[in-house]
């Protein structure tokens, strides 16, 4: 019996291992900065950067915003710069 179980487990994992499936059927998000080349990431532009912060002031993951890796990297650097000069918060507390 234990031998039989082992075989079954092996076969199932083989089936799952094939390819990575995207969860849910959402519209594929496009990086906003790639779509609009004129958009610049600037640490001084709090208006634009604020849109990539959560309610709590945390940086939104690219998984949610749909940014590409390159622009997400630049965005995080810009947000962190803005934080050092108190243009953006590190953390926002709930009232």
């Amino acid at each position, binding site marked *: 019996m234990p031998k039989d179980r082992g075989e079954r487990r092996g076969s199932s994992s083989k089936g799952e291992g094939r390819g990575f499936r995207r969860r849910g059927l959402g519209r594929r998000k496009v990086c906003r900065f790639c779509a609009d080349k004129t958009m610049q990431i*600037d*640490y*001084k*532009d*709090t*208006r634009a950067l604020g849109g990539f912060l959560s309610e709590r002031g945390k940086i939104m993951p690219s998984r949610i915003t749909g940014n590409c890796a390159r622009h997400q990297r630049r965005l995080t650097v810009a947000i962190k*710069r803005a*934080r*050092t*000069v*108190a*243009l*953006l*918060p*590190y*953390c926002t507390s709930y009232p």
Partner: protein
Amino acid sequence: MADRRYETLVLIHPEQGEQGAKELTNRIRSLIEDQKGSIGQIQEWGLRDLAFLVAKQRRAFYVLFEYRATPAALAEVERNLRLTDPVLRFVSVRQAENAPPTPDRTVRRPEPEETTDASLDTGDAGDMESLGEEI
């Protein structure tokens, strides 16, 4: 040594006042020039609210310097800024050679929209009042 394009955003203690902030701005300008840097532009954003308390202050004067200098000069300028007590914080960034200069008051861009919203609000309020008078 080749010089590079930098920008430095400086936060000045609000107790300095409008006048003190101006003087300090001039001092930083001469500091950069003493290091053989050439100033591109200086933007004074004035007293702005901070996102969080810095040195127990809610506000600070923001001044943006755009200039060309050598890396050694930047290090010297930063060292001096660190020694200057009224400077709460600063951040220096190297700019791309072909980047356009920062347009005036990038950060204050939201203001016009807010005023239009406010004017709309007052317009509504005015209508309400006039209705009240009719009744």
